[in-house]
């Protein structure tokens, strides 16, 4: 992250729908070449924010500058230099994959050979297949291929892996990481914390129309969820868990004890001692690193997905 000017600058963005304010004074900057994630539950305002940056929705306040172009002043100019993958966007169902890309390239004023792009998005064997016959994952890859027809420096992906099975999701992560490797900036929304952690250089956590935290995933976890969770499955005995070194919080659920610890090494050590002396019997011990889920819970008081 050098001192190069940001490629996307969002300042004081506001969107109101009647009495409801969907986006409340959102500001952030996206650096050239990073994968920037907007993480939040459904209804947090992620898509609305993204679509205002893309020039698809008119904000009620604030400004957006993309690659030096003010979106309000020249929305078509912005659309020309970005790639957009819309959540659940439909295509012409009886056109083939190749025809779809040719058509959308023309909408960008370009004439391209779609084959390398098809190859790249792993749709080679579906090149002549009609869109209606594609699986969810293939459709999503086509959607991203359409976003790439104009070779954009900035790519917007709105919940790119929603509805995909785990394998297809991981596959897409590799492809998205590849875009960063070739110097593109990627801005994506997600409500999967694992996706944000694994893929994003920086994450903005959004809830109820506001950004509640913004940093690299590790830094967020360090700052907002210091506790590591240690889970033991008891088979006998007992102890005053709260008094163990490092333990900050104890949740007892059936035979499983979850200990939030600020010093996992010390806590585990104490547990092992109790087990050895026979005060306590447990047959399983798991250590769980804190995740963005914990960060979200800590910052908002509720879970990412309820």
């Amino acid at each position, binding site marked *: 992250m050098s001192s190069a000017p940001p490629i996307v600058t969002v300042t004081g963005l506001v969107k109101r729908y009647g009495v409801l304010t969907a986006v409340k004074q959102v500001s952030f900057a996206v650096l050239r070449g990073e994968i920037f994630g907007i993480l939040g539950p459904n209804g947090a305002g992620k898509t609305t924010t993204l679509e205002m940056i893309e020039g698809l929705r008119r904000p009620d306040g604030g400004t957006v500058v993309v690659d030096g172009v003010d979106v309000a002043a020249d929305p078509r*100019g912005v659309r020309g230099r970005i790639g957009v993958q819309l959540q659940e966007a439909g295509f012409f169902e009886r056109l083939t994959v190749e025809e779809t890309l040719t058509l959308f390239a023309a909408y960008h004023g370009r004439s391209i050979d779609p084959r390398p792009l098809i190859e790249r998005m792993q749709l080679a064997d579906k090149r002549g297949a009609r869109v209606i016959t594609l699986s969810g994952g293939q459709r999503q890859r086509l959607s991203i291929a359409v976003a790439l027809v104009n070779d954009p420096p900035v790519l917007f992906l709105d919940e790119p892996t929603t509805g995909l099975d785990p394998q297809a999701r991981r596959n897409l992560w590799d492809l998205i990481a590849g875009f960063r490797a070739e110097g593109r900036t990627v801005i994506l929304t997600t409500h999967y914390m694992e996706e944000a952690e694994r893929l994003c250089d920086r994450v903005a956590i959004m809830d109820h129309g506001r950004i509640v935290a913004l940093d690299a995933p590790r830094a967020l976890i360090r700052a907002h969820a210091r506790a590591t969770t240690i889970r033991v499955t008891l088979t006998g005995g007992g102890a005053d868990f709260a008094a163990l070194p490092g333990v900050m919080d104890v949740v007892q659920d059936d035979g499983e004890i979850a200990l939030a610890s600020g010093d996992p090494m010390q806590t585990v050590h104490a547990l092992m001692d109790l087990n050895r002396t026979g005060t306590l019997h447990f047959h399983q011990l798991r250590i769980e690193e804190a995740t963005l889920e914990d960060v979200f819970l800590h910052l908002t008081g509720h879970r990412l997905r309820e």
Partner: protein
Amino acid sequence: MRAFFLTVVMMFRHYFRDRTSLFWGMLFPLILMGLIGTAFGREADLTLPVGFVGAGPMAEGIRRGLAEVPVFEVTDETDADAALAALRQGERALVVVMPPSGGGPVRAYFDQGRGLESRTALLILERFIAEANLRASGVPPALRLESAGVAAARELRFFDFLLPGILAMTVMNSGLQGVTWVVTEYRQRLVLKRVLATPVRPAAFLGGLVTRYAVTNLVQLAVIIAIAVGVFHAVIAGSLLTLAALAVLGTLVFVGMGLAISTVSRTPESANLLGSLLNFPMLFLSGTLWPREFMPQTLQPLISALPLTPLVDTMRAVSARGESLAAHLPALGYLTAWGVAAFLLAAWRFEWE
């Protein structure tokens, strides 16, 4: 320009890959035409079955004379009772019973149930008897009648009448049934939003879509005309080029109306329903399938105001009567006004999402 051109090409392919729309666009008009044509369009080949009872030279002469009347189909009956039984069963329009050789009147029996045919047969018989009497008296006739059929250049058959109506209907359907569904469906499935997320000018995309309707309609109409001419022996008296121009104008007007409807009704179902609510009354009132004069007098002002009426009238004038457009410019102006109003409404209210 490339965006516009590719939209036309791709939307054209997209359309022709859809069997359902091909059915409604081509097969349905043809089926409708075949059904209505065969139900109402029977040719006027009048034959009147006549039963004849009588023997002797005089009867034989009359019989031969009757058999020469073109529309009479004379059957010999053994006796009057058998002949009347056949008449009662509806097998004869007229029964002629000659008097026995001694003399007496020629008796004619007709079927009161088949009023028109029987009376026609009776009239012909009366005239035949009068002629026979005149000849027998040897007086030269004071007046002679020579008739010649005076018609337009040719006889207008029902299919010739029906074909332009079917063509106009197909054009209307593409707008009120086709566009209403397609545009709302594209909007609902976020296809329009996806297009809007590119820098393409809306006019290039929508213009391409409208143009593809004009092109597909021309193709559909060509197929319908080819089958109507080849299978139903319909005849087109006027210029095909003029008909094509009318089809394009009609397409623009009704596609405009379809777009306008899609801004009022947001779901494919409701937009299609609203389209049908306009479509069907026009189909039945505007003289598409039968002359609009069949409709009650009180409805005529309304019928004249419907946008389909000038299209049907003009297409029929060109197709069936071979007229040029010159006499129909006011009607076409009225039709165009509908199109302009529809496009203005659509442009004002159109939403991409």
